């Protein structure tokens, strides 16, 4: 029974990883940018939620009403101010630009908030849980996070498949220059993609802050989990990213169950390396080969 519990907890944890990862996946899919600042931007949003909820006495969920649109605006502006110009400098420039941004945000958070740990209170959700058997219980917060992850990733997939904006994104991802020639403003499409990516990152960061304590140094580790989820699932496929996040979560919890808690991260990394070694295109590689 403890094994079943480990798998269930892993699936729920995986939902959070997938939520972290979907913005990374979207930005890579649409404009081939690997955003190394993704984890730090998510953490920045977490701290914004913390500040707003403390100063205005709001619950973190209420603070999201301000922080999610704020994150989208920051993403839109960041794309125009920083990422679009960097795309002109070849493949390495965006990587270096986002790496620099990551360092700046990480150190800024450290400067302002000191290395102390903080946490967000999800209120009654934090302690509520369903006891399915004596050994298996599902926390309400984990279930809410997982549900939100499925909704967000499913919603993004529907957006890409069936909306005008989604078709413009796919066309731009396919060939930005040709997209311009059918009337698509590629820079604007990129900015919208980054706006969506940062809003999802802010949501993931907030859930992360409700689930566990956090400090300004955790951005890079969140980036690694998100990156692993994207790679395991296969680049460019959002359903793949969801499955990748879940597999990573299960690998961590089952690894912890088998070998002890300190093996959780290692087990996840081993799965990541196995996928890289034997199926480097990921488990659900996007069918469209990108040139």
């Amino acid at each position, binding site marked *: 029974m403890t094994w079943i519990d480990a798998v269930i907890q892993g699936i729920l944890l995986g939902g959070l990883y997938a939520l972290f990862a979907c913005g990374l996946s979207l930005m890579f899919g649409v404009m081939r940018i690997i955003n190394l600042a993704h984890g730090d931007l998510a953490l920045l949003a977490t701290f914004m939620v913390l500040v707003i909820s403390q100063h205005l006495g709001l619950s973190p969920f209420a603070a999201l009403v301000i922080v999610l649109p704020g994150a989208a605006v920051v993403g839109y502006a960041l794309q125009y101010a920083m990422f679009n110009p960097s795309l002109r400098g070849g493949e390495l420039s965006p990587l270096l630009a986002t790496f620099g941004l990551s360092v700046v945000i990480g150190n800024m958070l450290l400067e302002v908030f000191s290395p102390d740990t903080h946490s967000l209170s999800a209120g009654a959700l934090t302690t509520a849980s369903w006891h399915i058997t004596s050994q298996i219980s599902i926390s309400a917060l984990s279930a809410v996070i997982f549900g939100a992850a499925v909704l967000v990733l499913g919603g993004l997939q529907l957006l890409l498949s069936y909306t*005008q904006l989604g*078709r*413009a994104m*796919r*066309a731009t*991802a*396919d*060939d930005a*220059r*040709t*997209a*311009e*020639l*059918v*009337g*698509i*403003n*590629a820079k604007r499409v990129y900015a919208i993609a980054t706006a969506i990516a940062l809003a999802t990152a802010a949501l993931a960061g907030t859930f992360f802050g409700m689930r566990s304590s956090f400090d300004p140094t955790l951005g890079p580790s969140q980036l690694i989990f998100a990156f692993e989820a994207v790679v395991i699932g296969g680049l460019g496929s959002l359903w793949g990213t969801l499955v990748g996040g879940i597999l990573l979560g299960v690998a961590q919890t089952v690894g912890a169950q088998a070998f002890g808690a300190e093996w959780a991260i290692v087990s996840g990394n081993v799965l990541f390396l196995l996928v890289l070694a034997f199926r480097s295109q990921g488990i659900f590689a*996007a*069918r*469209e080969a990108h040139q």
Partner: protein
Amino acid sequence: MPSDSQALTARGLSKRFGALRVLDDITLDVVGTSAVGIVGPNGAGKTTLLDLLAGATPADSGSVSLSGRDVSGLGAAARCRLGIGRTHQVPRPFGGMTVFENILVAATMGGRLRGSSANDNSLRALDATGMLELGNRRADTLGLLDRKRLELARALATGPSVLLLDEIAAGLTEPETDELVEHIKQLHAAGLTIIWIEHVVHALLRVAERLICLASGTIIADGGPQAVMNDPAVVDAYLGSAV
């Protein structure tokens, strides 16, 4: 369809790539609803001229206006929305999308249409290029003729007043070329202004009312198709390049 006297005007267009002067001071007036063919040896700057007109490449100097409106400062996307459609010599479909999606995205973004009018316009573009039965195919599974037809349909779906065609007959068999020429003739008859670069001159002459010959980045002949084809300078430019 605009019936203005000047559909598209270029004034003093020049473009260099490094030390190479590709286009030198090109001035061109295209009358509304006319069909203009552009010929010239390889490397004459024909494709670059279309790129400058469409805004895909910025000109070093000179201006472009569409129906009297200066569009020189606008990028490709904005010019497309104002009515310049363009096809590529080597088709560039959005491979991961279906044929219908390729056209629909052009109709909604380039043609600024919504909902059912976007759908209707896309279906008309499919119909005008004989692709109705291929709507649900993924674009990267198409053969060359169908890719060329998709280029044309996608450009049409943006609702152009001026259509720029880049060697649309290149690589096609005779019957395939004939079929495309028929589609283009019908579009021209329906009032579209067409500027068409082509090496397959006999296909071009079935549509073009005016022919321009470009060589080494300048216009060396401009006028009626037969007069231009018989022009000694044109014959010379072609023979010179054939060696």
